[in-house]
């Protein structure tokens, strides 16, 4: 009896914390100035929120099938979030969607210079999008 109610309370706390992390991701998406920083906000606390909510639901609904399937869900989220983040940020870096004045340390530029390949866009932009957030020469707005 007491264990059930304790688990329910812990599950409720975890659920609210997971929702709070999702809210953090939403706030970060709106407030951050740049594609890469919005990516940080949209993936890291987001996946943590999914994880905490799933753990909370597992503690509340004490069933083996639910536990197994939620484990699969969390595993899939953890696997797929870095893939999409990597793809989007790599493409955004190359297409000048990144505010380079906000970067404190640009390892990719150093690596591409060391390899002798030019960084940045190749000059032949594919159709579909105009590059936004071009690095301003003057002070940022």
């Amino acid at each position, binding site marked *: 009896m007491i264990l059930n109610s304790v688990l329910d309370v812990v599950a409720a706390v975890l659920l609210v914390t997971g*929702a709070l992390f*999702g809210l953090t991701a939403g706030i970060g*998406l709106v407030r951050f100035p740049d594609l890469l920083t919005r990516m940080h906000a949209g993936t890291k606390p987001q996946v943590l929120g999914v994880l905490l909510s799933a753990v909370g639901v597992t503690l509340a609904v004490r069933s083996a099938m639910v536990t197994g399937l*939620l484990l699969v869900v969390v595993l899939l*989220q953890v696997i797929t979030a870095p893939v999409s983040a990597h793809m989007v940020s790599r493409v*955004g870096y190359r297409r000048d969607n990144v505010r380079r004045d906000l970067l404190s340390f640009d390892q990719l530029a150093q690596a591409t210079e060391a390899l002798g390949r030019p960084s940045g866009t190749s*000059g032949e932009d594919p159709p579909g*999008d105009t590059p936004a957030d071009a690095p301003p020469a003057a002070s940022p707005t």
Partner: protein
Amino acid sequence: MIPLAVVVFGLLSVAAVLCLVRLGRGPSMLDRVVATDSLLALVVTGLAASLFFGVDSTVLTALVVVSMLGFVGSVSVARYVGGMLTEADPEPEPGAESRDEAEPAGPSEEQR
């Protein structure tokens, strides 16, 4: 139970509205892609939270499918914007070979 549901789904709804704001405002397609990805993760969180409040556990099937396929959209748009989906360079015309022999410099790709 009801105040907890209001709190949890209220927080998720506010986060979803903020993602929609970024979806509308984002100056480039990649910002909108990030917002869509976050929206899908919020849907996953909301569906998992609904299990707590007595919804039938068949939503787990939808949950697994959404979390498995939710990133396909963002990766596809990123590949499109990055130019990885355009066709390869067409084969050079027969007249281009004589032009290449006339040029003293190397291939033009290294000059970029």
